[in-house]
């Protein structure tokens, strides 16, 4: 349904809020050239596109902006800002739209994974002991069955290892055998590595949820563990 824009009621509060949090968002600089929209796979979904969104923000259509589920369909992939002549930060704008949703109203799937990550250190909610057990079990299996890998080294929380490796929690939980190829490669090059046990999940749902506090907590715990307990000089993000 199309409604006439009520000019009198326009107060771009949301725009002011975003510019306060992201001073370089350049929202007022949009030329309406449409480059963003032309190259965005989320254009037209839920009757929205990035250029239209920026117009709405600038015009102060705050109520519509607060309601549109498009905030969760844009993937914050940054393709638009990468191509935008005025560097309008649409992904950060969308992040702040998400943050404007009451936490409990945000999509359950993301919310649940974020909460789990805060609580258990990984989005799948695997207890650390189970993670360690799985890793040791899979390692032992390889050592026993393939003589080429009888001295394969796998460890959790080995202080002083050169590389600390972040593992997406999907593997140890749903497909533990998928852990092995990476270990074999690390073995082949003689890498000195370990898995951290604190916040070991490589995923980042609190970021997707736009939960600054949760995200920050996860990062701080992780950084503390690596810098102070393990003292690994390099952290590696996996595939």
């Amino acid at each position: 349904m199309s409604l006439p824009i009520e000019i009198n009621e326009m107060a771009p509060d949301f725009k002011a809020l975003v510019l306060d949090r992201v001073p370089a968002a350049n929202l007022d600089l949009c030329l309406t050239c449409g480059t963003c929209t032309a190259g965005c796979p989320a254009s037209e979904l839920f009757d929205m596109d990035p250029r239209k969104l920026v117009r709405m923000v600038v015009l102060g259509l705050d109520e519509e902006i607060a309601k549109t589920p498009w905030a969760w369909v844009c993937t914050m992939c940054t393709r638009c800002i990468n191509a935008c002549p005025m560097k309008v930060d649409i992904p950060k704008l969308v992040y702040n739209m998400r943050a404007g949703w009451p936490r409990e109203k945000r999509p359950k799937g993301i919310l649940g994974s974020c909460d789990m990550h805060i609580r258990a250190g990984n989005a799948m909610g695997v207890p650390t002991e189970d993670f360690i057990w799985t890793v040791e079990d899979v390692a032992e299996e390889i050592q026993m069955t393939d003589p080429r890998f009888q001295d394969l080294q796998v460890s959790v929380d080995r202080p002083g290892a050169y590389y600390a490796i972040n593992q997406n929690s999907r593997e140890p939980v749903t497909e533990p055998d998928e852990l092995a190829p990476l270990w074999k490669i690390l073995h082949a090059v003689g890498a000195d590595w370990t898995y951290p046990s604190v916040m070991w999940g490589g995923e980042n749902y609190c970021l997707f949820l736009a939960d600054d506090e949760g995200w920050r907590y996860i990062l701080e715990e992780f950084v503390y563990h690596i810098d102070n307990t393990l003292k690994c000089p390099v952290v590696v993000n996996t595939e």
Partner: protein
Amino acid sequence: MRKFKIDHKFEFTTLITLYAQWIREGKLKVNSDWNKDLKIKFTAQDPCNMVRKTWGQKMADDMRFVIRTIVGEENFIDMVPNGINNYCCGGGGGALQAGFTDQRRAYGKVKFDQIQETGATYVFAPCHNCHAQIEDIGHHYGGHYNVVHIWTIMCLAMGVLGENERTYLGDDLKDFGLHKEEPS
């Protein structure tokens, strides 16, 4: 960590950067001989998080260097556009868990068409979100490609990929180069 200005002493890198470095240094001995006669065609997704959002085109280039090394120059067919201009798979930013399935798949149609255009039967997706999304849109739109991690094909090329580590391989590679134990 940049966003919250959290100080950290460690350096941050990715597995793909290390693969590339190890291959260049000669530490990781791997080549594409296994695919010389098979000529299986591969393409690759540039994960937004790693490429456009963090390490840029250099990461995209390193990834291609690694992939070309393990599958053969002539067997890698790039998507258009690619690198920092590649499209997001549509599963990122939590989209896979957000519950808007129809919209997520409509978004992913762009990626699906890009993949189909290459004619490749294998897609490297070195990110879990991309991996799950590209598999899902493949099934949904009736594609006939397999989605793999780099480590799987790397181990296949080195002749060390175990029997249980082949979930994502198609029938053409399910038994390929399987290491058989000598009877003792």
